[in-house]
């Protein structure tokens, strides 16, 4: 089974409802390592060597964070700047991340309409272009984001449903029971993604 590194960035996790339950849910899987960035580096003083070691020892990378101003929280950006070094992650000798899968798990306050296609609108996947581009440069396979929208109005049972779906998806992905060729074409990993889970599961 593939190992999963979950890079979690949430500056106010103590107030979180959605991310708390999502994390609990996938945290129960044996092959998932939860790496809580704001807990590890409250002073933004990221230990690059340690992070690289972690990345090297996992096959799948999840970046999970609440969407702030259509982007990840500051520490995750700092993490990218510090950890993804030239000559290690990219460049002629930078092959450390080659072939690893990467996707984002994002919670948004806005409803799914806000992020639907249309004039003056961008989908989450469009807004994640920098990360998609980053994974190209680092020779990683970028997968569509797992999203939970309208978090302010969600009831706990709704959140639990999302969390269960999340867990199922991560499990299927890491045990290679997913049809990845179809998956890559999706905009987000929503309820429809369940159909891609192979029957054998």
């Amino acid at each position, binding site marked *: 089974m593939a190992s999963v590194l979950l890079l979690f960035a949430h500056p106010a996790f103590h107030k979180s409802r959605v991310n708390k339950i999502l994390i609990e849910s996938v945290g129960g899987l044996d092959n998932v390592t939860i790496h809580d960035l704001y807990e590890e580096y409250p002073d933004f003083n990221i230990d690059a060597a340690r992070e690289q070691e972690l990345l090297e020892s996992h096959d799948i990378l999840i970046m999970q964070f609440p969407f702030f101003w259509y982007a990840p929280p500051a520490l995750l950006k700092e993490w990218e700047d510090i950890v993804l*070094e030239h000559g290690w992650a990219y460049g002629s000798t930078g092959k450390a991340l080659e072939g690893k899968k990467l996707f984002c798990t994002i919670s948004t306050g806005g409803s799914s309409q806000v992020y639907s296609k249309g004039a003056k609108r961008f989908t989450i996947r469009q807004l994640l272009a920098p990360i998609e581009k980053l994974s190209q440069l680092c020779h990683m396979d970028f997968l569509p984001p797992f999203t939970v929208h309208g978090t302010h109005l969600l009831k706990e049972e709704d959140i639990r449903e999302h969390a269960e779906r999340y867990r199922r998806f991560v499990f299927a992905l890491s045990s290679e029971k997913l049809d990845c060729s179809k998956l890559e074409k999706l905009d987000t990993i929503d309820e429809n993604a369940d159909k891609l889970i192979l029957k054998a599961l």
Partner: protein
Amino acid sequence: MHGEDFFIQAFMYLAAAVIAVPIAKRLGLGSVLGYLIAGVIMGPFILNLIGKEGQDVMHFAEFGVVMMLFLIGLELEPRHLWRLRSSIIGMGGGQMFITSTVVTVIGIIAGLKWQASLAIGMILSVSSTAVVLQSLEERDLRKTDGGQKSFAVLLFQDMAVIPILAVIPLLALAVTTGHESHAVSVDSSWVSGMAAWLQTIVVLSVVAGIILAGRFLARPILRIIAQTRLRELFTAASLLLVIAIALLTTKVGLSPALGTFLAGVILANSEYRHELVGNIEPFKGLLMGLFFIAVGASIDFTYIIDHPLLLILLTLSLMAGKFIILFILGKIFKLSFDQNMIFSLALAQGGEFAFLLFSFALHKSVLTEAITKPLMVVVAISMAITPILLLLNEKFLQPRLGTREKEGRQADSFQEENSVIIAGFGRFGSIVGRLLRAHGVGLTILDHDSNSVDMLRKLGFRVFYGDASRLDLLEAAGISTAKLLIIAIDEPEQAREIVAIAQKHYPRLTIMSRANGQQDAYELIESGIKNVYRETFETSLCMGREALRFLGFRAHQAHRASMLFRRQDQRHLHELVDTRHERKTYLTATRQKIEDLERQLRQEAESYDEQLDKSWDVDSLRRAAKER
């Protein structure tokens, strides 16, 4: 001079102290009991090694009390003494008046003449300065409310001894011209022959002289002596000062203890205070020890065995009577229950002055030996029992009462869950504590400093006085349910002691400890503490960072450099502990310090530079671009 005799005597007293006191301390009995027990064992009843000269030794050793009051005076600024005035006069005066009245009435009822009864009453109303202060000091109770009030009462009693000495001869039915070999102060003084008004003037001018000399003369003289840079000369000057004042006050009929106390108060503000304390302290300690041994040795066990019932009854009624009177007074003066227990138990005995006053009264034929003999034994027993009572109070009663004042608020459930004990609330611990408190964390503070403790109490903190390396205190503070023990005291040795005790009894409790420096940090880590905080580390780092900025580094660059340094240093600290252990056997502490530093510098030189250049606009990127 019988040189050999002197050495044998000195050997026996010192040996008794060196053997008995550590054992007593280890058993939690305290040094006063240790000395007393040593005295009993060496005394005529058991080993019969000392005893013949016991009374003389006791008179000599009483000088320890004089020194003790000098030291107490040094800690007490005049302002503070002035604040104690109502306690001194109210509680001290009340205690002496009521106790002597009650005892006198009992004496008259028992069929004694009123003069004899009054003499006994006055003599028994005095408590033992030596026993009380030493016991309170050693249990860290002297600065508590109860301790302060006890001190105030003792101060009044010391002053009252002089009038008592003056009154006793007047009580004599027949004036005797007996031998007055006993060095009783009034008789050997310069002023005894003078008229009363002249005496008063002489006494007052001596007091004024001490105050003025202390203010204007002592400091310049001490400065000259300090400038010679001869330590022993300063010691000699300190002793000279105390002895001179004791002699002077004795000669004018004042209590020497009172005179030196006054001198101490006046010098309390001077810059030589700590020097004086350091010089007098060992002498005081030894003399007090000697005094307690002598008291122990003077307890006449053959007499006790001959009249057990009488003595037990007398001792019990003396102590119970004094206790009840003191307790009521404590209540009137608004002492809380637990402080009142300390106060009343501490003072419920006869004092060393009683020995002197009884023999004085005997010489003046106010009392007969049939009366003084049992009463002197009773006083000695009551002095020996006091430390035991205080010990029992501390061990069994106080833990149940908790703090010395009622808790203002009931701790809510959040606080209960977050209970943290902070040992030491000085410049280090107070910052930790303030941060925690600002976030509603329930704190319990252990500290020595009575001023800050009082202030903290008023602000509603849970505060306990005393030595945090005592298990019973830690338990009273709630260590069994605490989540975290923070050690923020500034004596490394004591910090390690607390660590050892806490780890032994509560192995699962998390401990965070302040470390004095690198070596201290190693020792703490070796003892199993992971959370060690070197007290100057963060500040030095901060200073280094600011220095870099001053030299032209960009702020963020300097910040990152210092953070990287910090991380690596932290790592090396823990790595060095392991390797250090192997080298420990053949390296001295200093050599080790240098070698540790050398290793750190080497490790840094290897990894530091390359680490810093890896992020953002790196050189390798530029090289790759050029190659293309």
